[in-house]
């Protein structure tokens, strides 16, 4: 059993027209045992900046907390909201600091640039290599399944409702092919002035 499969997760972020969506499953399990089915993987970092963490839950939580700490100090010092590109550098740095004893968790970032409103998504590996995505970014034990589903459902310039459908269907069908992820799903649709969170019912197995 690999450390990346100890807890299990399904994470996906997608870009649309002037909006982004980020969605995760909500299973918290320890190997084969499911502990809770309403686990929050998405963390808010700013009014239009969200991060979801995959992999080992303890590391996911720690990285999210340490990231928020650095981000808060940044915003206090600079007196301005962070822009996604800078945030990606911060995440990358934080993970690379542990290059030879890494966090077993990978973040997926989704947000809108605070000034231009342009959609922005990014994925990483556990030592901080950033990949800025143009269409979608996937992660977790269902990462590969999600890649396939997203490739089928994603099109450029989806409006917020089409985006919601695309990301939800991708997530639900991908996590059904993964025994370590599932038991529910959460979808965040992020627009310039509004963030909507939807909770989906999924197969409970």
């Amino acid at each position, binding site marked *: 059993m690999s450390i990346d499969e100890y807890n299990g997760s399904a994470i996906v972020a997608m870009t649309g027209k002037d909006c982004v969506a980020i969605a995760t499953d909500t299973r918290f399990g320890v190997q084969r045992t499911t502990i809770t089915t309403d686990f929050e993987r998405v963390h808010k970092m700013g009014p239009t900046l969200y991060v979801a963490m995959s992999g080992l839950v303890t590391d996911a939580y720690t990285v999210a907390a340490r990231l928020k700490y650095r981000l808060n100090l940044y915003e206090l010092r600079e007196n301005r909201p962070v822009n996604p590109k800078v945030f990606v*550098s911060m995440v990358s740095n934080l993970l690379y600091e542990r290059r030879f004893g890494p966090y077993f968790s990978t973040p997926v970032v989704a947000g809108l640039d605070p000034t231009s409103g342009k959609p922005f998504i990014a994925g990483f590996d556990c030592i901080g290599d950033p990949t800025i995505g143009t269409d979608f970014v996937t992660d977790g034990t269902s990462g590969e399944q999600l890649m396939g589903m997203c490739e089928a459902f994603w099109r450029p310039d989806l409006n917020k409702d089409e985006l919601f459908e695309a990301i939800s269907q991708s997530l639900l069908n991908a996590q059904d092919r993964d025994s370590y992820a599932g038991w529910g799903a959460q979808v965040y649709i992020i627009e310039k002035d509004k963030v909507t969170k939807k909770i989906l019912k999924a197969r409970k197995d």
Partner: protein
Amino acid sequence: MTERYSFSLTTFSPSGKLVQIEYALAAVAAGAPTVGIKAKNGVVVATEKKAKNSLYEQDSVHKIEKIADHIGMVYSGMGPDFRVLVKRARKIAMQYESSYGEAIPTGQLVQRVGAVMQEYTQSGGVRPFGVSLLIMGMDDGKPTLWQCDPSGTFFPWKATALGKNHINGKTFLEKRFNADQELDDAIHVAILTLKESFEGAMTEENVEIGICNDLGKFVRLSHNEIKDHL
């Protein structure tokens, strides 16, 4: 480097002053005059660079130094102290860029340099820096000009003068400063302000001028360019 002394050499006087800082400011006020002016589309700093001897190789050492592509720094006071701060400021700017993938906003650099200068008023076995710095930069097309004092305080300025005759310099600037003037006019005003406290003739050999232009870059003017402005 300084941990042998565990107590600070900068201590309060009964009247509540830190005399070491006052003395440092006196060292600054005795230094060569420096002027900084913010224009609509850039910033200019100018400083007197008199050679004590005609044998001096003037061009080997500069008073106006680049800290990052978009930030320049100059001083009034003790040259060697300035060099230490330039080194520190450059490292701070590069570390920021390495962590955040973005050029350091001038205000952020100033905050950090100010913190360094404050350290030397409270740490064991050191003395305050004998310089006041003028830090100029372009942040996203917006010109900024800051002063950093030996105490660690920093002020944003529209226009200011440091060093010898700085009070007269500031009075002169109060009359001549115009928020809407272009960079070329600001350079002209800076030269005039320096001339007020200049002994002898001002040439391109004994003055140094640095600008942050509207492309967001710090540039030190060449001798020919200075000659054109004089």
